[in-house]
């Protein structure tokens, strides 16, 4: 078994690990770095539960090898909280019942984060389109859409 060294930054902290070249990024995050907040839902790039940000852009960590992320900056759900405070997106998900079982939530939050960075003042239709990259089976998306609307307002206020 050939092991390759992978160096990357996750949520601002540098990590180094050795893994097989075939190891998926999501398995590397979960098993080698013990960051189990990122979930595996389908392993074929449809459900979006495993979405993380790679160099600032949303990516399916089940469709990427860890070695491909060598040198990259990764953001995961574990990095959203700052100083013990929920990120405005997390706070909005909490207040608007944006999650039930919570399994899609990490992917939903990271997708929404990327979406709001590129589209800070979205319409409801744009939010629905933007979030269609992640499947939720519990909520019917109602609370999620409301939460992203609320977070957009909150983040716009913070930016001012």
């Amino acid at each position, binding site marked *: *078994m050939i092991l390759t060294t992978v160096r990357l930054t996750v949520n601002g902290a540098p990590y180094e690990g050795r893994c*097989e070249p*075939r*190891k998926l990024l999501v398995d590397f995050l*979960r098993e080698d770095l013990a*960051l*189990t*907040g*990122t*979930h*595996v*839902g*389908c*392993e*074929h790039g*449809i*459900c979006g*539960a495993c979405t993380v940000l790679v160099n600032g852009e949303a990516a399916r960590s089940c469709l990427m090898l860890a070695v491909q992320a060598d040198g990259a900056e990764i953001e*995961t*759900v*574990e990095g*959203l*909280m700052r100083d013990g405070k*929920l990120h405005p997106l*997390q706070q909005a*998900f*909490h207040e608007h*019942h944006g*999650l*039930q*079982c*919570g*399994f*899609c*939530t*990490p992917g939903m*939050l990271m997708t929404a984060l990327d979406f709001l960075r590129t589209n800070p003042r979205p319409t409801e239709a744009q*939010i*629905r*389109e933007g*979030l*269609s*990259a*992640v*499947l*939720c*089976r*519990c*909520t*019917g*998306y*109602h*609370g*999620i*859409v409301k939460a992203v609307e609320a977070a957009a307002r909150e983040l716009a206020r913070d930016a001012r």
Partner: protein
Amino acid sequence: MTGRGRYVADVVLPGMLHAAFLRSPHAHARIARVDVAAARQMSGVVAAVVAAELEAHVRPIIAASRMKGYKATPIPVLAGSKARYQGEALVAVVAESRYVAEDAVDAITIDYEPLPVVSDPRAAARDDSPFVHDEAGTNVIVSRAFAQGDVDAAIRDAAIVESDTFRFHRHAAVAIENRACTAEWDAGAERLTLWSSTQVPGMVRDGLAELLDIPVHAIRVVAPDVGGGFGMKSLLYPEEVAVCALARLLGRPVKWIGDRREDLLTSSQAWDEEIECELAIDADGAIRGLRARVLTDVGAYSMFPWTASIEAIQVISFLPGPYRVPHYRGEARGVTTNKAPMGPYRGVGRPVSTFVTEVLMDRVARRLGLDPADVRRKNFIGAADFPYRSPSGVVWDSGSFAESLDSACEAVGYDALRREQASGRSGGRRLGIGIASYVELTGVGSAIPASPGADISTGTEGATIRVDSGGSVTASFGVACHGQGHETTLAQVVAEELGARLEDVRVVHGDTAAGPIGSGTYASRSAVIGGGAAILASRALREKALAIAAHQLEADVHDLDFRAGVVAVRGAPDRRVTLREIARAAYAGAKRLPKGMEPGLEATRYYDPYFGTASNATHIAVVELDPALCDVKLVRYVVVEDCGRIINPLIVDGQAIGGVAQGIGAALLEEIVYGDDGQLLTGSLMDYLIPTAAEMPAIDVRHLEHPSPSTLGGFKGVGEGGTIGAPAAIANAVADALAPLGIGIRELPITPERLFRLLGAVPRHRAGA
């Protein structure tokens, strides 16, 4: 939400191994030879276990039932002699990592002798069909009928009879977390712990005890955070049994995390029914009788604990809906085929029965020139009729059927919509309005078992509530939340009934070692039965706490107020003790307690609502069809539901809307498709489409809050209703839009392809394309 949840995949144990299963590529094949030698020699592989080796350690899973006309089908944990569906597990490989285990699976060779595949349920029911289970001597393993009155005469004498053969295709639950389990055998204590993504830790524990021949008290089943279930995770699966047997055999923890392909191949599937139905109507629109024959494709096995009867029996139990049906006969048959086993999925039977009955009600209206809402109003069971015994023997304790319909019509602006529809039709606009009214039995007690004849207890639940020496409250339950928010709702019930502060109540569930004996969460039961048990235990504690407080305050119990964790003398609010002070006295013993009182502040109570209680709702869907694209766009969606007393409105809305989303998927998008050779053609989420945010309309949910007359707390279940109403409402809306073309809907889902074929049967200029 913060990445700190703990699902089964997140459980890591010292020395843990990883299992992968070799699964049959054939739907029906004899297994001639299995060669695992190469796999066993691979680096990192600990074991490759075949059926014959496992059989010595574990019994096959048998879903027994006393139901007449039922035949059990033993499920081998690993299949040894023949495979009965594509994906059935044949060999278990255990290795140091999942990657290595999967490599080893690829190194196993098996010689198969393909057998004729039983695929079409109608053909399967015939005597000349090959059998899925030779021992059964038939594929018809469920056969049951309910009858009242003389339905044949009713149909013969009726002014009109609306009849059709309906088809509700096969569906999958698609919880976003796949099935997963991890077992650990403690050889010193002779104790087994299974972490499983399950809704029913209590039933899994009881099942494992039988199959592994271990006492119940030596088994702990933990359902940690569970990423959705929807009924699919309310069964005992072979993989759960296998990891337990393997962990015991190998002396190391064994983890299996299913992937999506395994989920779509092997998790229980749902519905898949053909229903021949005749509705007899008098000239004035009153229902005279209903006759139905239901054929359910139950797949390869009858699963534990519900048995293969659950779906078909629910269909014939609930076909009469919220209507007075004087004469009725419903016959159900369940036939085995070489497909994944069928199990309960959100709504169980009632999405199908509601679809059939409600489509027929609309056709009656059209035939008589009446408004569909008026035909329903004419036939609803009225307020004076409760308790109402339905023709299938179900007792409806209450209902607000007409009120929910009237409110839904008002909410959606029904009359204005009808005018808009009429004016749009001349311009070729295809707007459709569809109504579905239904009633469902929730919080089912012991009188009507959730699975009649099965030897399981589904009518009771317990609550153990303990106020500790610090005054904080732990409430433990046998119900097992998988996204329903029991941590919130049950804590609210306990806080209110006991008099504690909400923030002081911690709800524990999903751990058979922690709580009272219970089965789990399914069938819209947790708020009703778990909540009822919570009320009983809280009341017992409240009474005791008040007695202690009266002793401490030297006051009469009747002069005390108890709320938010404080007991105070009415009119003298500075004479008060906190729940913490009461609890300290309770554990301090005799010197600080009323004479003769037993120390401690803990209570366990069980609750059985006996019949259960009726929830009801009306859904109205408004669709606009684009005949050129064969696209159905949901324009509006209104739900007016009555789930009795509401514990938490946000959570009720979440259940209703989430249920509707699954119903929308069932009506328009989702379908499990098998080829005639039994090969699954929808083995990925690119083929099996569930709704995304983009397909979901805004859902307007309104509540009628009529407390249940027959349950403690007045609660009614709300977990499944959304999925029951939506397929029927959408089918009726699409049929309404197509009515000018003379096209009816008899098959779900209405995929673009089906719509294309329906429209193709109509001359092009009339379709407006």
